């Protein structure tokens, strides 16, 4: 047995270790228990039931697609935004603009979601827009809700790029646009990846968003989970939770791979 050395520094980690055991490790084992021992003995019955049900697959696929589309929109909106903020000369103005963009998060999420629903319904009734149909409203809600999580990591990584790299690039003959493509973009890849994970991961398993903004055609895995709980199907819920866990794990893995291709120095995040 390894003797535990209680030096002063390792003691600081104790609360976190306890937290991890109570809120992460034990629940994980409970998930596994409910998924495989739900009916008393060990069985693959629940797992098999999930994987043999085509509608379950469709829900998983739909969740992935909606989360992916919302995340990509977030990148498209947040990157130019973060880039322009980072290029503002005065730091004070930079912080003020960031503050203004993050401020909506101070309002309760449910309130924002309901307000968005009312606003888009009103727009649909009075204009040619069709925002509340199909996935549009849900995707819009996810983008608005998670944009700050995409904005901040990209902003931080862009402001962290040393000006000397941009000068070297210009010195070697690259126009500002080429410099952006060949230096700024690859060096900010790690920010895009962390932003992507911070948006995609919660978006794929969102519940109240799809509940309030979606319809029958946007039934997502979070709602499925809720249905299981309301039916008191612990084993079914545990299987879905495990599937989500694996999905998130795989997406983190892929994202890190992409990040490593983009930036061979910093080996990604997470």
């Amino acid at each position, binding site marked *: 047995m390894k003797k535990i050395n209680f030096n002063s520094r390792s003691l600081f980690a104790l609360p976190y270790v306890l937290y991890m055991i109570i809120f992460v490790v034990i629940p994980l084992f409970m998930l596994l228990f409910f998924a495989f021992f739900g009916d008393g003995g060990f069985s693959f019955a629940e797992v098999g039931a999930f994987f043999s049900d085509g509608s379950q697959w469709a829900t998983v696929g739909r969740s992935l697609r909606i989360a992916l589309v919302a995340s990509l929109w977030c990148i498209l909106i947040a990157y130019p935004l973060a880039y322009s903020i980072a290029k503002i000369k005065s730091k004070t103005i930079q912080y003020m603009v960031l503050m203004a963009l993050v401020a909506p998060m101070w309002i309760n999420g449910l309130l924002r979601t309901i307000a968005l629903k009312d606003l888009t319904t009103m727009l649909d009734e009075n204009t040619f827009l069709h925002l509340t149909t199909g996935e549009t409203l849900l995707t819009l809600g996810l983008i608005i809700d998670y944009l700050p999580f995409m904005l901040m990591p990209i902003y931080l990584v862009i402001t962290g790029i*040393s000006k*000397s*790299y941009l*000068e*070297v*690039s*210009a*010195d*070697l*003959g*690259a*126009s500002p646009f*080429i410099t952006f493509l*060949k*230096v700024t973009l*690859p*060096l900010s890849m790690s920010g895009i990846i962390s932003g992507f994970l911070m948006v995609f991961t919660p978006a794929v398993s969102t519940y109240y968003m799809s509940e309030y903004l979606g319809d029958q055609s946007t039934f997502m895995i979070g709602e499925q989970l809720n249905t299981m709980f309301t039916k008191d199907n612990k084993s079914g819920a545990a299987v879905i939770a495990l599937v989500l866990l694996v999905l998130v794990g795989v997406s983190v893995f892929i994202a890190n791979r992409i990040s490593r291709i*983009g*930036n*061979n*120095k*910093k080996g990604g995040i997470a």
Partner: protein
Amino acid sequence: MAKFTGEKIIELKNIVKIYDKEKVVDDVSLSIKKGDFVTILGPSGCGKTTLLRMIAGFEKPTEGTIYLEGVDVTNIPPYKRNINTVFQKYALFPHLNVFNNIAYGLKLKTVPDANTKKGYRLLSQQEITDKVNRALRMVDLEDYGHRDIDSLSGGQQQRIAIARAIVNEPKVLLLDEPLSALDLKMRKEMQIELRRLHKELGITFIYVTHDQEEAMTMSDTIVVMRDGEIQQVGTPKKIYDEPQNAYTADFIGQSNIISAKMIRDKVVEFFGYKFPCLDKGFKPNEPVDVVVRPEDVTINPAKPQFEGVVMNSVFKGNFYDLTIVLDDYELSVIDTKTYPLGEKVTMAIEPDGIHVMPKEALTNEYETEITGENTISIGDTDFEFIPAAGETFAKGDKVVATINFDKIELTDDEAEGQISGNITDMIYKGKYYQVKIWLDNDTALIVDTPYDWDTDDRVGLVIKKEDIKVRHDEKD
């Protein structure tokens, strides 16, 4: 070696750069010959890096024109100038390996090609590979192409930074203190390496450094800068042997700078003795500065001229660095032999070992204005003065205040001074130190002080009212 003497590759005309109202570069004009190794030398903050950045195109001059091969490039962005830079902190791209760092510029380069529609084309992969490998060979890192940047030592990174610049075959290579982050041994090696590269490539090198030894060993031409102005341009030997003023003499090599009096042509008086020298053209009895290099003083010569007492002797490997005291002057002398401390020795200086320079200024001539009854403003503070008989001054009059260098007292404690400022330059003059002090309103005063201060020290200044002589500014 492609060296066409006389052909100007870079020409700077009346360059001024102002940052936040401060003149960092002040009316600099300079021609650089094609194929030369030119070093811009000066202490930190003298404007040398700003000057280099303007040549590269990262900064635009506030006034003046920059010509590259006779073409005005003042407003041309850096990526359109055929000039490459080696930066102080290397700035190798972290997301690219060694090969791709070096190939960065080549991939963007176009070459004339009559067979294509546009008349030019990009370099082929094979051409790029060949050029990169040749550049790697030049900096002795042949097998490093696939390596990551962070797996390289500082010296290797610097070589890659140099390879990345020279691979583009620029007309001018700019080097901004490229060796300052390396240790002494590596620095010496790289100095030789850079010299060799310069010979092999025939490209014009413009090198910026604060290290005078580096400048002396590497350059064909040295440009000495101070406070945004060029002090002197010349070969290392000329600058060493014939410094134009006390500042250059002090900055380049070890030297004795002595206040002296030019009796007549070819005769100068210092230490209370008269010495024959080679300089002429000064007014009779004009106060001058004399530079005597430590190696130009002979101890116990056949024909002694003056004497002193050995106070200190330090062995420096192949010579002794002696301090010899005469009255209250301290003379630094280099000799192959040492002498017992306290021993009286005789000395002589050959006429060609004495270099006479005009004194930069004899007294502070401070341009200011009258702020009240018998008060003037110096560094934003009112000072009292005693007007000369018959002179009348009214508030707002433009005046010149004359204050002798030795009539300003410096205090350690800022609060004890009437005004305060920062010491920027200091020259030891054998008997006292001459310092330049920048006051907070960006005006300067020169002070002779018996104490050894540090540059960047903040000091208080005390000036007695009887030591301030005020006259009307004749320009008005």
